């Protein structure tokens, strides 16, 4: 069994581990580090429930080996809230009823994080295009779009206020 030492930063904290080559990043995060906010929906790269930020880009952590993340900076859904305050995207999903069962939500939120950093003021079409890799079985997406619009407004307001 081939194992490799890896060292990475997860939600701002340094982390050293030894992982088997074939260990998927999502299994490493959930099973080894207990970061179970990142969900496994399909395990076949289709649903986006496992989306995390890796070096500033949203990726599907079921389609990446942990060893590939050696040296990387990772943010999972657990890293979003600061000092007990929800991130504006989380607040948007709360305020605009962007979730029902919540299974897809961590992935939706991480994809939104990527979208808003590339495009802080997306229109509805751009939001829907950006959510192409995230499936939701409950909401019909309508409220998710609204949640993201809420977050975009709030985050832009914050930038202006800064």
């Amino acid at each position, binding site marked *: 069994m081939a194992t490799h030492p890896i060292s990475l930063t997860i939600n701002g904290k340094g982390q050293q581990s030894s992982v088997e080559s074939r260990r998927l990043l999502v299994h490493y995060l959930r099973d080894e580090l207990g970061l179970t906010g990142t969900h496994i929906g399909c395990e076949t790269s289709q649903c986006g429930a496992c989306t995390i930020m890796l070096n500033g880009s949203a990726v599907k952590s079921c389609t990446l080996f942990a060893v*590939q993340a050696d040296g990387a900076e990772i943010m999972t859904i657990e890293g979003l809230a600061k000092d007990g305050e929800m991130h504006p995207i989380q607040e948007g999903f709360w305020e605009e009823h962007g979730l029902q069962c919540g299974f897809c939500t961590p992935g939706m939120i991480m994809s939104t994080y990527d979208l808003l950093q590339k495009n802080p003021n997306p229109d509805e079409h751009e939001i829907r295009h950006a959510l192409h890799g995230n499936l939701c079985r409950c909401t019909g997406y309508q409220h998710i779009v609204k949640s993201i619009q809420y977050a975009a407004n709030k985050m832009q307001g914050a930038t202006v206020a800064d």
Partner: protein
Amino acid sequence: MIPSEFDYVKAGSVQEAIGLLQQHGDDAKVLAGGHSLIPLLKLRLASPAVLVDISGIGDLRGIKSGGDKVTIGALTTHNDLEQSAELKGSFPILSEAATLIGDPMVRNRGTFGGSLAHADPAGDWPAVALALGAQMHITGSGGERTVAADDFFIDILTSDVQPGELLTSIDLPMPSGKVGMSYQKFSHPASGYAVVGVAAMVTLDGSGNCSSARVAVTGAGAKAVRLTSVEEALVGKSLTEENVAAAAGTAGEGIDYLGDIYASEEYRAHLVKVFAKRAVLAAAGNVK
């Protein structure tokens, strides 16, 4: 879903990667973005003994414009091509096609070179590379060789990149004259892959007639191919809807069409004509 066991080595340079590939022969596979390979590993449809990760080779990522061509490093991601301001002027088709690949997470990881080397029968880049007349740079233990896109795609999942070789960069010859290009895709609603996708590049002469055309299709058969009958029928014509429709009507001869649960062979044959027409008209519409 857990792949079979394998060992993993990260290469720091092209030479090191080639050395590793030579050393392990058929047991080794290159890992770039992993978005075609890892799904296959998880299903155990591929079980290499060693993965050689090339994603850390910085030289292989990036876009360079120089004189008569643009050179794209094999590791340049779909997202890099989607966002590149530099390419929007000379090759708008690249961001147009990139934004239709999978979803944002796939585009953040998947690479241009990986997609071409993998030669997926429904990959988008193979059609675009054929339409743009791309030249592929391949490096092996014996040095570098260059292969034209027309000779690069051999069969289903088979490109001209041999075991022990790396696709390092892709040249796109800079179009000259009045040129328009477009990629039109009928996406599978679930997978995002092309049911049929057509890329077209047209050049107009002084009187506004088509002086040359390159049109290529993906998703229809086992590999991406040029639609030569359409190209021939366009040359010398003014690109009116009527003329383009007539040319597109010839599309697809000689293709051994794929049929699957989503789209039958007949349906794909029909889509090829429809999308050939759309792609050529869209290309004609953005000539500059």
